[in-house]
């Protein structure tokens, strides 16, 4: 080529020839590229874009931490998982293994079912909300729309200190009255309180405890509480030999269900077949519990649908109810009264404290001293708590409280080896008790002790402020005994309010220590 500084003529020719050359080069390059592809050392293959490749709207091999996850059966009645959301962070594994000591505590191969105690703690820990409660709101909406159905609802002690969090209120906000108002506006025909059967549970369970201590029933000590369905399934799986220690009482929810379709139906003159019994629970395991074959003693399914706190919030939002501006309303009568002893059922140690108050009265016939109204050793978030209270006539009542099944294991192992000094042990599946149940609002993920403490404080504050703080003071419970059941552990009470549980040992090969 000539000198670079050439005339415009020359330039235009150059441009044209350049374009020509460029286009032919392009063709050539394309062809060669296509032909050369035959000895491509690293052929392009589909996939392999990396973890979370579109996280920041750009492809990349973001070094995500992936650990796997817990197995969840598709027909799990309590929880389900959206594979689209799962990022395999392993938080569910962490929870299931270290807090509930379920995953990893059975040897492989599995037998025939996926081992799950339905506690839903994994759904609390899941950062992407891939694991959620099984949504039953559609069924409840459908029942509410059915004019031929009498839809009654019970609310667990712990939902009233957490539901507000779904609507922007601070953790532990006391929304009992608004919750009742919201349920009425959703169209429930009767809004009743599980606290009523919590008090009833104390009467039954306390009576049973005394009978065990006095040797009137030939059942071993310590007696275990039976309010927490996750714990019951845990015991059936891993400690079936200790099932005789389990109180025969049903949980408050199931007692309520059995009474709703018998006592309540009779008192209100409603055909029990037309009753749809719904419960609002902080718990996913309750969804499993209400489907247990043992829970049909009313002649019907005792509790038809269980909704978690989160589902209730969803229903309220769906119906566009302005929750925070609702007036505070009261529960409907004959199964709506509460005492402080029932309110604290939602807290770890609460059942024990309420039972202690009642036991003192049932044994001595006297009001318990102030100590029993503020039984601090069983309060708080320590994993295993112990207390010893003196009750005149029987001596020292030794009790233990544990929450989270990893802590439960320590107590159970002690009982199994016969080293347990206790008369009565409270087990709560979820750390902190029902207030931090698997169906509660996901205010912090994973749940924190700070939030647990705020909810606990709210419950104890309510207990302290109530005029009646002991279960035996519940007038509606007294009326129930007078008009229907006669006395605690009567024949009818045994039929409706008590049950027995069966070993699930053939469903797994348990390990005493963590596998891996």
């Amino acid at each position, binding site marked *: 080529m000539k000198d670079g500084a050439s005339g415009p003529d020359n330039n235009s020719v150059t441009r044209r020839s350049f374009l020509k050359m460029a286009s032919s080069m392009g063709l050539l390059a394309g062809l060669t590229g*296509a*032909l050369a*592809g*035959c000895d491509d050392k690293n052929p392009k293959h589909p996939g392999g874009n990396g973890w979370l490749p579109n996280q920041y709207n750009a492809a990349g091999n973001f070094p995500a931490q992936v650990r796997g996850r817990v197995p969840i059966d598709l027909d799990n009645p309590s929880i389900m998982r959206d594979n689209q959301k799962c990022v395999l962070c392993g938080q569910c594994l962490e929870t299931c293994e270290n807090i509930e000591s379920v995953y990893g505590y059975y040897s492989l191969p599995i037998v025939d079912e996926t081992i799950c105690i339905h506690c839903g703690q994994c759904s609390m820990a899941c950062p992407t909300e891939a694991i959620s409660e099984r949504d039953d709101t559609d069924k409840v909406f459908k029942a509410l729309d059915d004019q031929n159905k009498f839809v009654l609802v019970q609310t667990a002690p712990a939902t009233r200190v957490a539901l507000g969090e779904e609507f922007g209120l601070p953790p532990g906000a006391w929304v009992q009255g608004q919750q009742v108002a919201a349920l009425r506006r959703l169209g429930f025909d009767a809004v009743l309180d599980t606290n009523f059967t919590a008090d009833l549970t104390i009467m039954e369970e306390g009576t049973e405890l005394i009978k065990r201590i006095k040797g009137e029933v030939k059942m071993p000590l310590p007696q275990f509480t039976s309010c927490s369905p996750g714990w019951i399934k845990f015991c059936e799986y891993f400690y079936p030999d200790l099932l005789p220690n389990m109180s025969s009482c049903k949980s408050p929810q199931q007692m309520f269900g059995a009474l709703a379709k018998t006592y309540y139906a009779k008192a209100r003159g409603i055909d029990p077949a037309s009753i749809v019994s719904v419960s609002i629970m902080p718990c996913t395991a309750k969804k499993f519990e209400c489907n247990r074959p043992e829970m049909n003693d009313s002649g019907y399914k005792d509790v038809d649908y269980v909704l978690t706190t989160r589902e209730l919030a969803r229903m309220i939002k769906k119906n566009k109810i302005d929750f925070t501006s609702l007036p505070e309303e009261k529960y409907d009568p004959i199964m709506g009264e509460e005492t402080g002893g029932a309110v604290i059922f939602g807290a770890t140690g609460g059942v024990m404290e309420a039972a202690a108050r009642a036991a003192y009265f049932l044994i001595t016939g006297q009001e318990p001293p102030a100590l029993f109204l503020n039984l601090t050793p069983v309060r708080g978030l320590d994993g295993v708590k112990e207390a010893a209270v003196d009750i005149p006539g029987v001596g020292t009542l030794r009790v233990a409280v544990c929450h989270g099944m990893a802590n439960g294991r320590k107590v159970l192992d002690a009982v199994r080896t016969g080293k347990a000094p206790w008369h009565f042990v409270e087990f709560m599946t979820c750390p902190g008790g029902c207030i931090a149940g698997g169906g509660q609002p996901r205010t912090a993920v994973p749940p924190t002790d700070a939030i647990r403490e705020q909810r606990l404080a709210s419950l104890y504050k309510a207990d302290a402020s109530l005029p009646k703080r002991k279960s035996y003071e519940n007038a509606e419970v007294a009326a129930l005994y007078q008009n229907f059941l006669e006395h605690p552990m009567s024949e009818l009470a045994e039929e409706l309010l008590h049950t027995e549980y069966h070993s699930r040992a053939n469903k797994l090969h348990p390990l005493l220590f963590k596998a891996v």
Partner: protein
Amino acid sequence: MQKKRWTFRITGLRILMIALVIIAALICLIRFIYGLGSVTNLSDQWPWGLWIGFDLLCGIALAGGGFSTALIVHVLHKDKYLPIARAALLTSLIGYLIALVSLFLDIGRWYNFWRPFVFWGFHSVLFEVFWCISLYTVIQILEFGDIFFERVKVYFPPYKKILHKIMPFLLILGIVLPTLHQSSLGSLYVIAANKLNPLWWSMIIPFFFVWSAFFLGPAMATIEGTLAAKTYHRKPELHVYSDLTKVTLWMLIIYLIVKVIDLSYRGVFSSAFNGSFESNMFLFEMIGFVILPIIMYAAPGIRTKQWGVVTASVLVVAGVIFNRLNVVFTGMAKSLGGQYFPSLWELLVTIGMWSALILLYCFIVENFPILNKEEHVSDRRVSSGASIRA
């Protein structure tokens, strides 16, 4: 030869067939825009369906008449069969074109069709099939060029000269290539060792395929000759057809013997009689489409009659189609699971393609020197081919 004008008689039937072709073309358009799933019933379990099983495998088999006739006429120089040679070549060429079109329709990434020319996946049977079919189609087009230039008097001497020079080479290649790929169409299924029913799977399935494609040729020539004669009010070349039956007869007998030996050698002979669906289909294929034609061809009373030779030929052709469909569908059904039946759209495309084949055949026959000139006059032979017969 003096005619300058191109003719194409339009009849009601032909209008219908043109409409069918247009419908098929429209469906193909949809298939190219929305993918195979939009028009076919194909699935992951049934990756190959009507277009491959019938249009490609059967189409190629039916077009096998071209190479067997070429072998008989041009290599063995059995000149008495010359009258049908060009017709066989034409059917074969159109058959291959149809097969290529259906293949093009069926492959998903059609713009990559040239890849195997560059990336030599020689370990694949399909590689051999692909090369042979494309080369053979080119050769057939070249061979047909000879005929084409008889009609289209473009004086382009070098072409004709070159063509005549290399014609022997083309002829031989035009027999070797189809031999290879007809057998390879069978070899395609050798790899499906644990999927294809043992009644059809065999290490010598390529032999069965090429052999049947070969004996299919005379039968095909018989049928299409008869059809053409009927359409154009000519006298069928019965003498040619009944002579050809000898070839078919012996090849059918050998086919049957080898089949029996193969089955007993692999120890699956008894499974042909176990009453299963597959065994019944197999027996039907062997008795109805192999043994029955053998009997018909063997009986002089049937062989020499027009109806007899045509019926037997129809049976042979149907038998080969039945065999291919058995390999693609019946034999694979159990291991693939699921169900496949061609969708209406698939069927319409197939019908459209075969209509196109018939239309093209008619057009070419009416405009090019394909069929024997003197045939409709009388049975007096002028051509040397006929004199040899006498």
